[in-house]
């Protein structure tokens, strides 16, 4: 048997199973483009819109709570008071403390039978280098054993006998979606009644949906969906197909990027109307049963949940969504690489887009230059010089030609070293 040390990802999963503490963390508004201006007022006695989560039959308000970054315990009872009934967490959020907080508050409120709880376990055993998947480093049996161990820790932290949805967490490759060890563990847990339904969460939603539809395992798929996908007809078609086949679809990263992608691209300052507009846009897709926006203040909670009872766009929300400069500035390259085939020179467009993001949106010129320098010889910006304008087309909403022209200008002006 291979005696390979667990990598960091495995270890965090392992340690998360045995930690027990409750720190308080907070989240800056600006990272989510949330405004500190007055939030839309909640309509008194407004009833939320409910949708059914696919074949699970679970009926939920269209706005739920992504607890991931929230560490103010009071947000959970307040969310419940307002009408939220689904709380999403994961074993590795805050090294297990997020689950502890959810469990403690649900128990204190005595509402376990009235809420839907989901958690996620990251199958250990995958090594990863800057997003490029490597081969699995552990056997299926080892993965299964670790998965069960981590989930056992989750139930203890949640102080629950079962969760309603258990996700295969962050399955960003076909191999992870099909992870034999994870699937065996999940099937066992479902059979034992410890997980009512099984799901998969992924940052590669198109792939995850298509793979899930080939399998007879998952009941729910958790996908990032936001307005940057507005022009991705194929992806939206895939979503609808999955919903028709009975998959319960939950949307995350609904306000264009979330915590890992700071909001400078959306421009400042952002109004509450922009946030509610973004969330409403997602929920206008009826294939989505519910969204799990993350919020860490009471103001954000009220702002987000105000959408649950009214999906009609206000004038201000319509203006925001039709503002081309706002939409254009929110473009970010999802690094799908589908544009590369359009380029006769084979330019590494995704890396050019990333360099643009660093330079223009984050003002991090050193990182932009480093990214340009990492491009293979002959596939960088210099290869673009013979084209009057870029012929590559983004399958999402990125204006590739505009961004390449920006980069050319920055290097011509020596703001960036090419």
């Amino acid at each position: 048997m291979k005696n390979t040390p667990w990598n960091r990802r495995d270890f965090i999963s392992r340690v998360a199973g045995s930690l027990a503490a409750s720190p308080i963390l907070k989240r800056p508004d600006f990272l989510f483009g949330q405004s500190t201006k007055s939030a839309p007022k909640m309509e008194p006695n407004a009833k939320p819109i409910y949708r059914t989560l696919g074949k699970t039959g679970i009926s939920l308000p269209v706005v739920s709570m992504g607890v991931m970054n929230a560490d103010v315990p009071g947000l959970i009872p307040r969310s419940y008071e307002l009408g939220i009934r689904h709380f999403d967490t994961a074993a590795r959020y805050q090294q297990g403390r997020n689950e502890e907080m959810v469990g403690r508050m649900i128990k204190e409120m005595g509402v376990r039978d009235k809420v839907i709880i989901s958690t996620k376990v990251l199958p250990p055993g995958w090594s990863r280098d800057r997003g490029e998947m490597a081969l699995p480093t552990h056997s299926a049996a080892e993965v299964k054993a670790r998965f069960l161990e981590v989930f056992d820790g989750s139930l203890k932290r949640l102080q629950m006998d079962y969760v309603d949805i258990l996700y295969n967490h962050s399955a960003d490759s076909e191999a992870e979606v099909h992870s034999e060890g994870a699937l065996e563990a999940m099937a066992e847990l479902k059979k034992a009644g410890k997980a009512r339904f099984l799901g998969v969460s992924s940052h590669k939603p198109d792939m995850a949906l298509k793979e899930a539809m080939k399998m007879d395992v998952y009941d729910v798929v958790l996908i990032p969906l936001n307005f940057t996908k507005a022009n991705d007809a194929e992806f939206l078609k895939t979503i609808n197909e999955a919903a028709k086949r009975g998959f319960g679809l939950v949307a995350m990263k609904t306000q264009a990027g979330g915590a890992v992608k700071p909001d400078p691209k959306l421009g400042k300052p952002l109004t509450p109307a922009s946030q509610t507009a973004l969330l409403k846009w997602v929920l206008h897709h009826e294939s989505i049963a519910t969204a799990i926006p993350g919020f860490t203040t009471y103001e954000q909670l009220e702002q987000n949940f105000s959408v649950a009872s009214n999906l009609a766009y206000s004038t201000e929300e319509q203006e925001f969504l039709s503002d081309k400069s706002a939409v254009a500035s929110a473009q970010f390259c999802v690094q799908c690489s589908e544009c590369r085939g359009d380029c006769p020179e084979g330019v590494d467009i995704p890396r050019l887009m990333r360099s643009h993001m660093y330079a223009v949106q984050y003002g991090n010129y050193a990182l932009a230059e480093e990214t340009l320098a990492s491009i293979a010889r002959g596939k960088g910006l210099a290869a673009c010089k013979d084209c009057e304008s870029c012929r590559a087309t983004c399958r999402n909403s990125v204006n590739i030609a505009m961004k390449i022209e920006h980069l050319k200008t920055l290097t011509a002006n020596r703001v960036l070293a090419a």
Partner: protein
Amino acid sequence: MLRSVGLLLALILSPACVSICASERGVGQEASQQEMLKLLAEPLPAGAVAKHAASFYGPENLYEYMDGAADIFVLYGVRQMLHIDLRAQAADISVDVFDMGSADTAFGMYAAERSPDFHFIAIGAEGYQYEGMLNFLQDRYYVKLLGFGDGADATLETVARTLSARIGTGSTLPTMLAKLPRENRKPHSEQYIPNDPLGHSFLGPAYVAAYGSGHPESKLFVTVARDRGDAQQRLKQLEQHFTKTGKCEPAPELGEGAIQASNSFEGSILAETKGRYLILLVNPVNGSEQFLKAAAAGLD
């Protein structure tokens, strides 16, 4: 005046200055990376050998390394992270050094992940070791080490102490923590929350500590405002919030402007201002008035 401002703006926005500023930003980033690389200069501690070149991650791509766990670091303002894997005899050591930008945010991030149950050790400003893991805090750095294999625990400590010596400065916790009442303080319960303490955007940043011998515990929040006026404004906003969601009454026994308040989801609080500080006690118990006065006195 306007002309001067205009000239200044023209200078700032001129291509020359953009180039200089960009160059300075680039220098800052690069200088920070060079500083971090020096921490892992040859000879490596414990006779270790690097398995690969060090890699750097910034807030925009830290998730590639840490998935959703990256969010917290981004929230606390991580500037960049250095990652490297080492091999030391029979042990494999994973090293992550986070440049959190400031000693306070480094402490905040460190405290966010620590548990009072850990085995604490005197490395840097503070550290703990637990089942193949050793994390410590020093200056603006939060260092996280993982070890696997024979002798890993001992190797972790050697690596940690070497890194600490190379960092050199910043071996104390934030000075504000020393001003908080010591009696009945729960060990290792202190935190620093830069934004949205207690779920209110107007309360950041805040230093926090827990008190009491059992459960439920009381929590003391000292929020740092810009000045006295800002502190009073924060108190007013807090009053408005509790009036809207629960109840709020004056607490003159605490001092002028002090309040006691409660609602169904935040529990009870006492709050008052002291200069530029807004002091809150969440879940007050008997004798809390004296405690709050002592806390305020400590801020002089």
